[in-house]
């Protein structure tokens, strides 16, 4: 090997630390945590290095590593990054590094918790860097399955009471409990993976059962009818993970029940995995179908934006607000991709990054608030700003980014997407998008005002609450810093992303 297999190091470092944790750190909670920090730290350094040294002039896929796994089926371990995946890998590193600190206080079975979390992260990196569809599918499964145990064991049951005409039925399934959420999330995502598997198999057979390599499949021009339904399969399959309406309902339940680090990782990174899959695999391999179905993807993106925002407004549970805001923001991602314009696509990828950081920050904060105040009820909490100024400030910065205030990453992303929507074939997409941004500001400011900046609550439970401490500061600091950095200097991200979206667009619309 003439150079360091940097992508493999990035991908497998968390896995290696998970093994170390399982075998050597029994009943040593501190060793567990520092091993996790080391493993994710290695990944963080590697991903920053990859991102920094990525050759923007040469563009295309770089840092390529390849060795054959099953030659007879054309399966190989093929890893490489372009501008989009390099940014996504960076996002993953930031979130998980912060997530390790954010869940520092996990008490119950922390050894297994960290091990599963790190295994899951390996799956996420794998999906972002692999270019072999089969291996990608394997990594996808690794990223999905540990979630069941992570939520089922370490999650928390909410105070949601089943209501409405189907209340009786929901009551019997245990809506609101962590077991329900874990099962729902896992089944939804596996349902998606079933669609992905069929799509991948169809493409594989269409090549004459030769190869799963993305680079080779990209050279092929598949039959339009095949493209059409395979694109839909990928759109539904990956889209479920991206939270497309009406298949999004696993997301609020799952994210609200999950422990802090898992919510961060799941809403921050895994949902991007879905959007990334639609863009990379769906649009990248099936250009004709992507153009044909753009109206569907964009329209459902619009529904996501408005529906998610309205649902977020209706929630009384803080974690559900954040979860529904993710549904809304993922709509922006899908809308941007569907515009098929340079700005829209860049905005879409940038939104993946911005929303990842933002929602990671939110879930970290909600976790902290819950840990201190033992409540997620928005309208019971009030005036926390005086007791926890650090958390309050971070929450407000996150909120401002969420509603798209200039000088935050959220602004750049939404602005580019809106620009793209206006220049696309479907100009009316702009209106639901803007309405969504408006609604976002309503619920974000209302929540921030109620919890942190209102008059101090007289409730005896909410007196003398502590601010963030020690490792928790590390989590908040990293995330806020990144959020502002990429808002002030978006070109750090847009540059590499543009080198990847340009060729993709040329394939899509032949410009």
């Amino acid at each position: 090997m003439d150079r360091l297999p940097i992508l493999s190091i990035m991908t497998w470092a968390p896995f290696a630390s998970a093994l170390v944790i399982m075998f050597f750190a029994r009943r040593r909670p501190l060793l567990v945590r520092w091993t996790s920090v080391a493993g994710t730290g290695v990944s963080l350094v590697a991903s920053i290095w990859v991102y920094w040294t990525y050759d923007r002039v040469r563009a295309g896929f770089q840092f390529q590593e390849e060795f054959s796994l099953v030659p007879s089926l054309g399966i190989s371990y093929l890893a490489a990054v372009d501008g989009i995946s390099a940014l996504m890998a960076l996002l993953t590193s930031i979130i998980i590094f912060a997530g390790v600190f954010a869940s520092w206080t996990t008490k119950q079975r922390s050894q297994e918790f960290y091990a599963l979390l790190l295994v899951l992260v390996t799956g996420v990196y794998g999906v972002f860097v692999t270019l072999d569809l089969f291996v990608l599918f394997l990594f996808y499964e690794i990223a999905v399955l540990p979630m069941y145990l992570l939520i089922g064991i370490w999650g928390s049951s909410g105070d949601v009471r089943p209501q409405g005409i189907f209340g009786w039925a929901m009551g019997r399934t245990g809506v609101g409990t962590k077991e329900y959420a874990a099962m729902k999330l896992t089944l939804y995502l596996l349902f998606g993976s079933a669609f992905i598997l069929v799509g991948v198999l169809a493409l594989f057979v269409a090549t004459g059962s030769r190869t799963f390599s993305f680079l080779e499949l990209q050279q092929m021009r598949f039959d339009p009818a095949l493209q059409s339904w395979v694109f839909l399969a990928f759109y539904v399959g990956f889209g479920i993970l991206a939270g497309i309406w009406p298949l999004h309902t696993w997301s609020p339940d799952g994210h609200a029940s999950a422990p802090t680090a898992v919510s961060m990782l799941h809403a921050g990174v895994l949902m991007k995995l879905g959007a990334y899959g639609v863009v990379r695999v769906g649009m990248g391999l099936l250009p004709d179908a992507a153009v044909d179905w753009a109206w569907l993807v964009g329209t459902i993106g619009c529904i996501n934006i408005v529906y998610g925002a309205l649902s977020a407004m209706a929630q009384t549970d803080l974690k559900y607000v954040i979860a529904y805001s993710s549904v809304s923001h993922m709509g922006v991602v899908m809308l941007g991709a569907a515009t098929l314009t340079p700005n829209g696509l860049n905005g879409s990828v940038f939104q993946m990054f911005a929303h990842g950081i933002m929602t990671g920050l939110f879930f970290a904060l909600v976790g902290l608030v819950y840990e201190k105040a033992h409540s997620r009820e928005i309208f019971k909490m009030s005036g926390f700003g005086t007791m926890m100024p650090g958390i309050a400030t971070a929450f407000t910065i996150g909120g401002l980014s969420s509603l798209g205030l200039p000088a935050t990453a959220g602004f750049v992303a939404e602005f580019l997407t809106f620009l793209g929507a206006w220049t696309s074939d479907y100009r009316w997409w702009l209106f639901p998008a803007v309405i969504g941004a408006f609604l976002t500001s309503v619920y974000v400011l209302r929540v921030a005002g109620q919890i942190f900046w209102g008059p101090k609550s007289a409730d005896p439970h909410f007196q003398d609450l502590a601010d963030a401490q020690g490792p928790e500061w590390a989590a908040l600091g990293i995330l806020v810093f990144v959020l502002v950095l990429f808002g002030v200097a978006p070109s750090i991200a847009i540059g590499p992303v543009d080198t990847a979206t340009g060729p993709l667009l040329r394939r899509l619309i032949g410009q």
Partner: protein
Amino acid sequence: MTFETLTLLVPELALFALAVVVLLIGAVRSSAYVGRGPLAEVSRGPAGWTTLLGLGATFILTFTVREGASLLDGAFVQDSLALFAKRLFLASAAISLLGSLTLRTGAFSRRSAEYHFALVASLLGMSVVASARELVLLFVGFELMSIPLFLMTGFLKREAVVPEAALKFFLVGTASSAMIVYGMSFVYGVAGSTMLSDIPPPLRDGPPLLMLGMAILLAGLGFKIAAFPFHMWAPDTYEAASPPFVAWLSVAPKAAGFVVIIRLYLAGVGTAALVWTPVIAVLAGMTMVTGNLMAIPQRNIKRLLAYSGIAHIGYMLVGLAALSSSGVAMMLFYLVAYTFGNMGAFLVVQAVAQSEQSDGIDAYRGLAQRSPLLALAMLLFLLSLGGIPFVAGFWAKLYVFWAAVERGMYGLVFLGAVLTVVALYYYLLVARRMYIDAPERPEPVQVPGLLGVAIVACVIGVVGMGLYPAPWVTLAQRVASTLFS
């Protein structure tokens, strides 16, 4: 009968000799048997151990047979499919034996020889079925295989549910045998011969009587493999019989049924076989749907595994429906993966049932904290059955789907893929009890040594095939290719 003929029959002769020896041990023991107490423990031993060693020896002897040879003008063949099936029967029987040797109930001590004789006799029947290429021989083999199975199901006759289940199994089984014979009579009437090789020529014109006969035969075989709508006997039978036996029952007779289906409907039939594609595809779809949906409400682990087993039969039929060399190969691969996963799961059921006296899935609460390794083994088996990467079941499903996609059967593959999610739901319900719920009692589940060995063997199979499936795929492809050459 030359010497060469005998060498070809070595596995069957060995099984026959073993059956006689076991029967003799039983005769000697029962006259020497004096009563309960320590002697009962001793008398449990010899028949079981003899059988186990005999099965091992027979397994080795299968490798001495010249592959591809035939006897009696082609009525009895030792082709690679037959040998593959025989090794599968023997290996699964050995794993089942390791489990049943640890059974502590009185009946297994007193009537040990009886049980093991029935097992060996049934195995002999299966061996004949796997090799038969003649209708009468096939039927005789089927009966020899089935009748001891009825007996073994009703072995613990003093327990309340057992006679009912055994009777049900018996009635359904004989009905299916009757259907097989009835179908065979039509086939013979049209083809004018009982040799399987004489069926394909008239099949090309598709005479209605022949098709009717083949359809009735397929229904009869459907009972044997428990495909929809002939699956009803499976849950009741599984629930009543002892887990190690059920582990074997859920694998070996079905494998035998599949071998016959392959021989009757695919091998040497050529393109005329494609008539059966829609029939088998519909059967596959209905079997998957029924098995998976019916498994959801089950609260008894054996019934749950029974219905999930029915669903797996559906997946194997998907591979078969492709009616291609790769389809058969992938189905055989699936069969091996299913053998390890399903038998392993039933063996864990045995361990838990012995300790908790319960087959409810609530008995698995907190198993991960009580016996982490046992829970991990069960989780691996369930994940394999559910088709999750890095365990055998994933490759099995993938390959079966691949074979079907090659034939353009996207609808069936979609259905199968979506139903795997349903399957994971009920597998995860068990996983949830093991890993998320708190245990009711803290002490670990006692796993007898031999049972542990059997479970470990299944784990090795499941994980080994999951991490390195290539040799098994090559083997299955080689077996299938000889049928289509």
